[in-house]
């Protein structure tokens, strides 16, 4: 089974007393859309950077398909919150950029780019430039770029955090569609509880001081969306709201504890 896993991982940043992550283990299977949810400082970004290969663990291991992860690699593409498209390339060349780096012929990589742009509902945007797009369109290009180069994992670093509420809802639905059609495992981090609940097949709740996983659950709402229920109906479902409040309570609970320990 080729899974992306963190095994008892601890990360310390120099000059900080508490570790950013302490003894975290997580497995992301081929069909998972795993969402890490938590307040700032809970180590979710560090966890994503570990999977991406930007950060090395002080102890524990990160592995993908049985091989240890030692640095960034094309099989693990990252979608950033902003600032990651290349403004001197048009949308199509941005999407084809990964294939160009791998030496894929021009006609082939542009055809692939067009195909992926259709998947993210941007079939007409190929000739435009990132600075001519709205925030939501830019993120769709970012997702398309990550998909185009035949990566096996999408690591998404608060991808919709800078978008307005309307666009964010649209992007969440688009992501579920893309995830289903492109059959790519996804690890997404967010501090938006609704987003996490709506998207995740597996949701890991993280807490700061030191960063750790405090709860893992399988909310199952994205399956309902895929079965045809509307996003708004799901998000206003009493079960959804109850789980949201419960998660919020858990987060506040864990947030208080470290302070009590200090006192």
């Amino acid at each position, binding site marked *: 089974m080729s899974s992306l896993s963190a095994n008892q991982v601890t990360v310390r940043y120099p000059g900080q007393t508490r570790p950013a992550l302490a003894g975290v283990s997580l497995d992301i299977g081929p069909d998972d859309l795993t969402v890490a949810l938590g307040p700032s400082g809970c180590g979710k970004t560090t966890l994503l950077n570990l999977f991406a290969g930007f950060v090395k663990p002080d102890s524990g291991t990160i592995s993908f398909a049985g091989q240890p992860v030692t640095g960034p690699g094309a099989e693990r593409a990252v979608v*950033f919150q902003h*600032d990651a498209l290349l403004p001197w390339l048009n949308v199509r060349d941005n999407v084809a950029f990964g294939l160009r780096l791998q030496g894929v012929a021009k006609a082939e990589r542009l055809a692939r780019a067009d195909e992926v742009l259709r998947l993210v509902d941007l079939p007409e945007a190929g000739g435009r430039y990132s*600075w001519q797009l709205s925030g939501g369109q830019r993120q769709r290009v*970012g997702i398309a770029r*990550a998909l185009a*180069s035949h990566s096996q994992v999408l*690591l998404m670093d608060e991808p919709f955090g800078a978008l307005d509420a*309307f*666009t964010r809802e649209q992007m969440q639905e688009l992501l579920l569609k893309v995830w289903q059609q492109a059959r790519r495992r996804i690890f997404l981090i967010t501090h938006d509880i609704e987003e996490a609940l709506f998207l995740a097949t597996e949701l890991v709740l993280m807490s700061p001081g030191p960063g750790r996983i405090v709860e893992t659950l399988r909310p199952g709402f994205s399956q309902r969306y895929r079965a045809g229920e509307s996003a708004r109906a799901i998000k206003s479902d009493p079960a959804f709201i109850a789980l949201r409040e419960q998660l919020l309570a858990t987060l506040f609970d864990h947030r208080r504890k470290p302070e009590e320990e200090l006192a």
Partner: protein
Amino acid sequence: MNTLETSLEQRLVAAAPKGVPDEIEAEAAALSPSVWAQYRRGWLSGISLLGLLALWWGLSHSGIVPPLFLPSPEAVLAKLITVSTQGFMDATLWQHLAASLQRIVLALAGAVLLGIPLGVLMGVSPVARGLLDPLIEAYRPVPPLAYLPLIVIWFGIGELSKVLLIFLAVLAPVIIATSHGVAQVSRNRLRAAQTLGASRSQLLWFVILPEALPEILTGIRIGLGTGWSTLVAAELVAATRGLGFMVQSAAQFLVTDVVILGIAVIAVIAFALELGLRLLQRRLAPWHGQLD
């Protein structure tokens, strides 16, 4: 690419519905007065230049200032024709101009060929920065004409000295701008390229250099400005051809119209260089100042 008018229109229309990112609305608000302001500024600049010309014409024709000190605009214009056809001091205006341009082009090419790699090195490697920074900071604030005598002692009064002097004047801004541009490359873009499989050299060619390009061009623009003024001054000292030499020798024989003509040509070239590089910058880096 949109033309200015249609993109303005689109932005104004786009500003209306809900959910449009704030920056587009802000841009639309900022753009419409700025187009008008540019238009008006163009007119005002024209008026002040015409005013200067009129003042010159009036003074030279009133008889208050003798032609030896201030020849009339027509006389200078007539001189332009004779100097460009028959020449002045054994060379036509075009030959003087060519001599000056050749020097600056050689110096610029050298400064770009050496300055960009050094700047990149300083931008990516703290060791290179530590080693090179004091050297550049030591010579950069010194006016080039201050070390011209030393260059003349070492390399004589030939072409090499002049080109070397301009080269040094252009080099520092190119290196500094390049290293600054390279050091400022967005970390997310580098990381994104890495996760798409970019090697170190691919990072350099496909991410770092394109992103630093607007800064590099700014460095070249600043360098060319200093280089041009240095060149003209250097030609005052030791030369047999060149715009600076032409002005200097005309002054010695009190041929004031050639002096004014020379100064005007020097000004026009400086303006053209600046404008050309700005155009190049807008062409090569249209995203500059548009995003993040």
